[in-house]
């Protein structure tokens, strides 16, 4: 009886594994050189291409970017005016150079998936560049404020440093604050921001995407004032 049940169960698992073969993305992930070669063929200014290549290569190495999503993004950007594509890539390059995660692959929020989403929504390159710059602002502000409160290291690790759990915390916290301000219509002074952000962190910790201990420390330390400070700093780069 148990054997029969277990066999059934396994059938399901195997089915899930095989079912994957039916997904459009179920081809092998491209290699870093596939992506970098594609980038080379995009006809961007050579110095910019070199800088971006180096940042992306480091990102693939450390887990701050994935080849699958990056290649899809680069392919997308060939379909919009070159200057706009370059503007988007410049934000991504800068974020990578600052040691931020720009792409979490196919699970969760990230700059690259945000671009793909906005393109799917038919937004212009200009609008996407603007949103991306704001997202970068939230990342920089989040790191600066969390460091001030001793929740993350104060120094910038840089693109080549191995990923630390606090990198994901910064990303998710910045994303939650950004979602609240950009898409939920909230203002930095809205006290609801605290519940929104804490709830997000708590759920991500429950999924194992952020270590529980880190999420608990952050949620315990956060106040509406700290989050308001992040939101304000995101729009005032000169004060970061």
């Amino acid at each position, binding site marked *: *009886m*148990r054997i*029969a*049940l*277990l066999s*059934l*169960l396994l*059938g*399901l698992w195997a089915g899930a594994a095989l079912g994957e073969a039916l997904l459009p993305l179920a081809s092998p992930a491209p290699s870093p050189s596939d992506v970098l070669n594609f980038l080379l063929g995009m006809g961007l200014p050579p110095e910019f291409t070199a800088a971006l290549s180096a940042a992306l290569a480091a990102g693939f190495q450390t887990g701050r970017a994935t080849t699958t999503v990056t290649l899809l993004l680069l392919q997308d950007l060939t379909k919009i005016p070159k200057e706009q594509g370059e503007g988007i890539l410049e934000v991504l390059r800068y974020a990578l150079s600052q040691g931020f995660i720009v792409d979490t692959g196919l699970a969760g929020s990230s700059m690259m998936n945000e671009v793909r989403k906005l393109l799917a929504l038919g937004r212009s390159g200009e609008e996407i560049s603007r949103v991306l710059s704001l997202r970068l602002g939230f990342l920089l502000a989040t790191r600066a404020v969390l460091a001030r409160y001793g929740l993350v290291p104060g120094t910038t690790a840089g693109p080549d440093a191995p990923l630390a759990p606090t990198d994901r915390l910064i990303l998710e916290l910045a994303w939650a604050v950004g979602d609240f301000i950009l898409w939920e219509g909230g203002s930095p002074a809205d006290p609801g921001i605290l519940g929104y952000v804490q709830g997000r962190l708590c759920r991500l910790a429950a999924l194992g995407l952020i270590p529980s201990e880190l999420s608990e420390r952050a949620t315990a330390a956060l106040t509406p004032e700290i989050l308001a400070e992040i939101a304000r700093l995101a729009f005032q780069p000169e004060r970061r």
Partner: protein
Amino acid sequence: MGTPAAKGVYIGGGERRRPLPAEELELIQRSLNGDLEAWGEIVGRYKEAVFAVTLSILRNYADAEDATQDAFIRAFQNLRQYDLSRKFSTWLFTVAANVAKNTLRKRRREKEPPLPEMDGDPAEEVQSDFRIEAVRRAVAELPENYRAPVVLYYWHGLPLEEIGEVLGLPVGTVKTRLHRARALIRARLMEQGVIRDALG
């Protein structure tokens, strides 16, 4: 209303050793992975049967509805405790019976149990089979320990062992309670003149 079997949720004794249908297993697996839609399907399949369990213990539609909802929520949250080699319905009914018993305990602390709501519209009652109404009253008047075994036996069609499992009772006790419940119902019906003679 059809029997549970007619709705494809057969839970009778004859099927006891049948393995969990693959489709249901898949729903449970998906639920285990947090798929609430799959759990919604389980709720749809079993809500009536779970409601019958909670109603048998609580004797009140509103409380039984609440307990049914709570039972499905608790079952989902504790789904990892469900042993796949056991019959799913038995486990689910056990959860439901525990939720209902807790509600009963709480209710006792707070106030007297409300009267059964089943009397309804008197005109409707006149039109319906008065013998059935008399049996319903007789069941409602049973001591609460006896009602749940009666419902699980006569409505769900569960074998004695499973009733014991659901209610946490030895099979012997289930048997005794069923026997006494039947005798009480029969005596009540005779008293009311619904039935006249002894065993035919």
